[in-house]
């Protein structure tokens, strides 16, 4: 493997990376001593490259490792992260980016055909919190306040503004406490369950149906993933019931009491987007990811972006394998959103969205060096700066 040549283009390199002006057409070669292309729940299946590089072209991964053609390598601008680790950026499966108010139509509970994309603002403040937390893509989900909230989108943050890469991806539903509102139908869980049942029945059996029920048909045919907010046992049960009756595998958002329904979840092929973990939780809650994994139920985390790593670390401490935890932050949410070809891994064709850590990001002591989105530095240090600052020796307390 070629070692970085500190040549005269370094200055220009620094300048260009700092300005983050898209250098049309020039490829970027990113090097590091460890590159994880894709995580897997089985550790031996992690795709890891040692002392390797990625070639980024037009914001996507063009070539990986040994496949990088020599001329491309020569022509590219080189970013060398030395002995840091590069891995796919985190995918935040479900977020409202702080705009819950805009993402839930309050007057009626059943609005499956509204688009969260219509409420997306590329300059939203919350987008700026994503890259510093290592998040390179997200699912924009409707509010939990609606039994059928609308169609969710998938987007990415950026150094200056975010963007949506897919405006109409999945459908958001809810039977959680927020969906039950004493001021309008439904006021109870029974009512929410009945509302879903009646709507799905009409969508399936009706002859002429409107655009709202057409969305439900897409869910039943497997065209669109369906995300359901559900926390308690009774709520999750209700969702699995609907899934069973109308033949689709739901993805549960929240899932606090999923432990009690594990067999059913596994049987229905359901997935869970768990609320982020915190050290204050009961042991049973911290062990939940390990239990879900053991039962073969795919899961990932969602909540505050800066708590994703903590959730992974806590899950590992409570019995989850590192590779599964890492997968839960990357490939699993990508798959749940149906975006596994674009995000969650650094394979050829995927977006050039990655994080650079000194060490394994599961270790909370690992230092976060940089986040790249679409082949551009979105947060943190370029290679040069990273090398400079990394050798700080802190001695104290004498």
């Amino acid at each position, binding site marked *: 493997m070629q070692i970085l040549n500190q040549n005269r283009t370094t200055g220009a390199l620094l300048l260009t990376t700092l300005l983050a002006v898209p250098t049309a057409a020039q490829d970027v070669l990113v090097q590091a001593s460890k590159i994880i292309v894709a995580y897997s729940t089985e550790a031996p299946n992690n795709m890891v490259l040692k002392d390797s590089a990625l070639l980024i072209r037009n914001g996507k991964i063009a070539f990986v490792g040994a496949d990088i053609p020599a001329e491309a390598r020569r022509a590219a601008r080189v970013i060398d992260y030395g002995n840091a680790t590069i891995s796919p950026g985190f995918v935040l499966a479900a977020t409202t980016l702080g705009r819950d108010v805009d993402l839930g139509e309050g007057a009626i509970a059943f609005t499956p055909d509204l688009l969260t994309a219509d409420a997306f603002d590329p300059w939203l403040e919350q987008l700026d919190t994503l890259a510093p937390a290592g998040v390179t893509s997200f699912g924009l989900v409707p509010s939990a306040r609606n039994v059928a909230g609308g169609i969710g989108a998938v987007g990415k943050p950026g150094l200056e503004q975010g963007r949506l890469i897919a405006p109409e991806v999945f459908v958001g539903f809810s039977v959680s406490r927020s969906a*039950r509102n*004493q*001021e*309008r*139908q*439904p*006021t*109870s*869980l*029974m*009512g929410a*369950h*009945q509302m879903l049942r*009646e709507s799905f029945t009409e969508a399936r059996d009706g002859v002429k149906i409107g655009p709202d029920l057409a969305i439900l048909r897409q869910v039943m045919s497997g065209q669109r993933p369906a995300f359901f907010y559900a926390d*308690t*046992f*009774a709520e999750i*049960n*209700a969702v699995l*019931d609907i899934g069973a009756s109308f033949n689709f595998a739901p993805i549960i958002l929240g899932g606090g009491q999923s432990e*009690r*329904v594990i067999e*059913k979840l596994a049987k229905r092929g359901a997935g869970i987007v768990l609320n982020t973990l915190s050290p204050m939780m009961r042991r049973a809650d911290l062990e939940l990811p390990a239990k879900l994994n053991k039962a073969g139920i795919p899961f990932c985390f969602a909540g505050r972006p800066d708590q994703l790593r903590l959730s992974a670390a806590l899950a590992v401490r409570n019995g989850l394998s590192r590779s599964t935890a890492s997968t839960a932050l990357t490939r699993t949410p990508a798959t749940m959103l149906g975006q596994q070809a674009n995000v969650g891994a650094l394979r050829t064709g995927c977006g050039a969205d990655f994080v650079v850590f000194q060490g394994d990001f599961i270790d909370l002591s690992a230092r976060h060096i940089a986040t790249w989105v679409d082949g551009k530095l979105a947060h943190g240090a370029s290679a040069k700066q990273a090398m400079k600052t990394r050798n700080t020796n802190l001695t104290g307390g004498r």
Partner: protein
Amino acid sequence: MTRLLPTSALRTGAALMALTVFASAQQAVTAYTNATILPGGKPAMSNATLVVSGGKVIALGGSALKAPEGAIVIDCKGKTITPGLIDASFQSGTKSEDLNEQSDEVTPHLRVLDSIDPEDPRFQRARNAGVTTVHVMPGTRNVIGGLGCVLKTHGTDPKEMVIKEDASMRIVMGAEPSMSNRAIRGGRVNSMYYRRPTTRMGVIWAVRRAFYDAKEALNKTQGAPGDAPPSPGTQILTQVLQGKVTAVTTARSEQDLRTALRIADEFGYQTIIDEAQDAYMVADELAGKKAVVMLGAPSAEAVAGSARSDGAAPRAGTVAVLAAKGITFVITTGTNTAALPLINEAMFAVRNGLGPQQALDAITIEPAKLLGLSDRIGSLAPGKDADFVIWSQNPLDPAAVAESVLINGQSVSQPR
């Protein structure tokens, strides 16, 4: 902190836990011997034996009945065995918001089964106090709340626990369905609560309108093309009119009790009367109509909570009145938050003049009959579910403890 049981109880309890689990796994036979058995609906048997296998009762007999060859024998000397208790009106711990779909005051088709949580602490408390089957209904905030179901009190999934779905449809008379609904003032209507009834008249009108629509739907032999099919709610009501689904009318005060009977008469359906605190005032009418009564928390000296505004004044002698008039009734815990565990409700009933046999029947075989499940629960007889309780002494004694509670032959109670 676990308390220390007297040694004999510990021995029996531990033996039971270990062996009955083993037994049901192996389809082995277990015989409980030397006990006083109150089989439910029949007089007590002393020095009796209960034989259980595969989750069912195989045999029951006096001292003449010997434990079968190869059976595991558990000596219950000094203990009393009764059938598992049945609470025909059980308030689960589900929040009241989830027990009532308030967007419409008439929701006959909603099912409370959808909101059951098996790990509700009330199920555990009920189990530990000897209750093995409960009938759960929707709440009392709706005029017609929806469909109730009958469940065993142990399980991980409501679908496994349920033994009868759509067991009842709840109608509520009185003040609760009209409370906190708003009357239009100043001409502004900004909440669905304005649509709901605010008076007793309004509540009864809602019931009559619902049944009127159902009767129309029933009588329509041919619908014109383009006619909408009857709503799911109306469909349930037609089933009630046809006697396919049992109506349960919650009525506490004298006025509401009479109204409940009158409406049932008017539309020609049979109804069970639930709560019925003022029943002693309406006893002759109830007897005349051969009404079946579910008496809610008869030990309570007052009705608790918002239901108090019905004005019902419970009296201790009610159980004796119903018995004297020959009215079929069961004892339940009902909607009163001050209700005691079911066995203690029965205990108070005996204190207040009900015969002990009848009191025990009122929490075993009579509720089983009322719920249409007497072929499988409510008494100890060959072929029935092995749901039973081993008590430290006669269960109507204040010092009695449910040492072991079994459902389908499996121990489900926690050692205390």
